[in-house]
């Protein structure tokens, strides 16, 4: 079974530039999550989708971050404009369903460096 795919794997940009990350979840998984993991910390949930609807985006900095999941399959996360403190690994995860809190499957992540 193919896992969660993410691209790019690495990205270096200058502050105030914009960047976009792409995620393709495991086939058939209804729920998709974006996490931010700063070095030395655990992942922090940014946004989660159930199919193509947003379930929770309470920790998404909406002045600069946006995400969409058109057609309820793959998703993009955008940062515009980037700040130095956005340097982190951005992880995408998926799970079969929202209810029940079952395990999440994570992609390899995109390591973002903002200079």
């Amino acid at each position, binding site marked *: 079974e193919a896992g969660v795919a993410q691209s790019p794997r690495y990205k270096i940009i200058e502050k105030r530039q914009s960047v976009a990350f792409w995620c393709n979840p495991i086939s058939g998984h209804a729920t998709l*999550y974006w996490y931010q993991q700063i070095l*030395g*910390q*655990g*992942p*922090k*949930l940014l946004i*989660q989708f159930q199919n193509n609807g947003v*379930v*929770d985006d309470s920790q998404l900095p909406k002045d600069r971050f946006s995400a969409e999941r058109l057609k309820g399959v793959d998703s993009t996360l955008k940062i515009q404009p980037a700040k130095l403190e956005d340097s982190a690994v951005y*992880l995408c*995860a998926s799970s079969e369903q*929202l*209810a029940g*809190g*079952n*395990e*999440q*499957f*994570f*992609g*390899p*992540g995109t390591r973002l460096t903002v200079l």
Partner: protein
Amino acid sequence: SQQGEEDPQALSIQEGENATMNCSYKTSINNLQWYRQNSGRGLVHLILIRSNEREKHSGRLRVTLDTSKKSSSLLITASRAADTASYFCATHNDYKLSFGAGTTVTVRA
């Protein structure tokens, strides 16, 4: 905000020894999950224990949950070099998973 807090922050053990790490959390949960992260395989789910369970085993892993103390422990028995990784507890409630900062485990050959 991160709900779970792991203890210790770092752990170094000899191959073959057992490793124990603890997780404390603040609010009620539906379940608690443990994940492992290393550079080779990324973040991988290890085990899930529901709020009405007290102990669960999976291979060399043993997890306990004490909801009265809001704490959990993960025991890895007979550790191997491949167990070198960061281990995170994650609490699930309100349809969200909240991760702690993790315990870094180093297994020395």
